[in-house]
């Protein structure tokens, strides 16, 4: 088998895994859709479209990627990024840099898939700059197998410039979480907006740590850190949502809901810090079992308690 055939087969395998994670494999064959496919430390495919540039360099245990969107360009279709490790064991480190030019608009759909993981470590380390008046949507969803032998470290430092908007969603709700360490820090300039949402469903011995930090540094900047976590069996979760109002008329909110079942343990630490008297930051956190009224409403429609809990958790994580 020559290298091309070997890569073709791996490409098909990773795309199949991408499909299992909820992605549409057709996107990687469309010339109109920008995409990047990385399996382990190999770049299996990259497609640029006008206005967006993708560079990827293979490293011994991963990939260094640079994504640049030209100023003022509105990318019509979401950019699809696919990362995964197919063998049972391995390490994948993705060091990425996103540059979203002033006034540009772009959305990324990222799927990270580890269907066979027994001992896999996946590190995402991103530096993101959202230019003045630009808009970046970033959605990352994971698909893990059922062994739980995976460690995910997802870190990002994001800079939102004046009037820019950064909206991200992270989901790890299919398959075992394993160990998750999620740590996003966003600095927001004047009139900028940052919205972070993290969702995870842990069971078995899964461990979930979510840290979301939004620093509202410019006048009238706004931010929201939202997390939705469900844990059961012996899983553990900790959510630290921090919002700082460091400039006049900044507005922020921390919103955390954790549902706990069986012998699982959940912690929530909302941190609200205000350095300007005109700033206004709020937080709400709800941890505990499923809300009694929600549960009994569904049971009064004929659902068993287990069915009702599943419906409520599914709604919370997929809504």
């Amino acid at each position, binding site marked *: 088998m020559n290298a091309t055939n070997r890569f073709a087969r791996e490409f098909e395998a990773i795309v199949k895994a991408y499909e299992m994670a909820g992605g549409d494999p057709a996107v990687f064959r469309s010339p109109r859709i920008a995409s990047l496919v990385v399996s382990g430390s190999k770049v299996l495919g990259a497609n640029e479209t006008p206005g967006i540039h993708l560079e990827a360099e293979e490293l011994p245990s991963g990939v260094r990627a640079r994504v640049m969107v030209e100023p003022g360009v509105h990318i019509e279709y979401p950019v699809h990024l696919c990362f995964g490790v197919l063998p049972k064991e391995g390490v994948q480190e993705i060091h990425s840099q996103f540059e979203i030019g002033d006034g540009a608009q772009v959305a990324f759909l990222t799927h990270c898939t580890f269907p066979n993981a027994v001992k896999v470590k996946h590190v995402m380390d991103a530096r993101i700059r959202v230019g003045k008046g630009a808009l970046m949507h970033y959605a990352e969803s994971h698909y893990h197998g059922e062994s739980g032998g995976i460690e995910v470290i997802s870190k990002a430092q994001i800079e939102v410039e004046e009037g820019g908007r950064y909206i991200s969603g992270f989901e790890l709700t299919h398959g075992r979480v394993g160990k998750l360490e999620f740590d996003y820090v966003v600095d927001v300039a004047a009139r900028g907006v940052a919205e972070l949402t993290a969702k995870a469903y842990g069971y078995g011995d899964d461990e979930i740590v979510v840290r979301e930090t939004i620093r509202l540094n410019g006048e009238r900047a706004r931010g929201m850190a939202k997390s*939705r976590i469900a844990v059961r069996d012996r899983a553990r979760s900790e959510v630290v949502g921090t919002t700082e109002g460091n400039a006049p008329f900044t507005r922020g909110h921390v919103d955390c809901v954790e549902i706990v079942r069986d012998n699982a343990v959940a912690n929530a630490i909302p941190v609200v810090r205000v350095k300007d008297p005109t700033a206004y930051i709020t937080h709400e956190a709800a941890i505990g079992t499923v809300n009694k009224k929600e549960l009994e409403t569904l*049971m*009064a429609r004929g659902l068993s308690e287990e069915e009702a809990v599943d419906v409520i958790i599914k709604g919370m994580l997929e809504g």
Partner: protein
Amino acid sequence: MGNGFAVAHKNPLFMLTTIKWKATDHLEKGIKMGIILSIENLWLEREGKAILRRVNLSVQQGTVHCLLGRNGSGKSTLAYTLIGSRGYVPSQGRIVFDGKDITHLSITDRARLGLTLAWQEPARFEGIRVGDYIALGMKEPSRERIEEALRAVALSPAEYLHRTVNENLSGGERKRIELAAVYAMRPKLAILDEPDSGIDVLSLDDIARLIRRMTEEGVTVLLITHRDEMVPVADVASLICEGEIIRTGDPRTVREHYARRCVPCKVAEPVETVRDYERYQ
């Protein structure tokens, strides 16, 4: 108890009264169809205090039975007890539904037998769409029935079907959707807890129309309300005070008694409020 029973009560705001319950035409029809719900000497106690006292009530199949009472009189408590809510286990008495003793059955089992509740303050559900929420209680979900249910509560299917049953809907909208879900479910007995209270809710005429549609489909309705304007919808009415049914009979008579004689209770604490529901697990 059958088609008539006597109730004595001790509330100083009422005269000691013995009520003879006279059957109307509707009742005669109902009696022929049988009693779908029979509550026999039901007591609910909490921390040594009686919340429901010697509740005796019979609901005839195919009728609309109105349970009328002031805020805090025990109406919702009785509803939670009837559906089997956690923390609402009677200390005495029994509940017979459709010929079966359901006193110790779970909410799910009672619902599967055909007993359900439209909540006074419906829950919010993150991520659950209106259409899916209505379908949850239906044995054979169909889009036609879901849309029909939404129209029955004066909501446009096109506008609401895909919205989420969360805080983005007003309390009144959620209340209508709750009624739509119960209507679509087609239970044997629907307990409607204060369908007329709150803002942006259905008008009394709309509620009356909805109830009529339910009964036409064979659903018996236990209508809980504190507004006497609702009573004409009913075939039979009962008056509850301090957790006790003090009068049952012809709706007009019960309404008159309620309007003339029943005043907000000044001597006793409300037996329980809606907010207490969350406390008792």
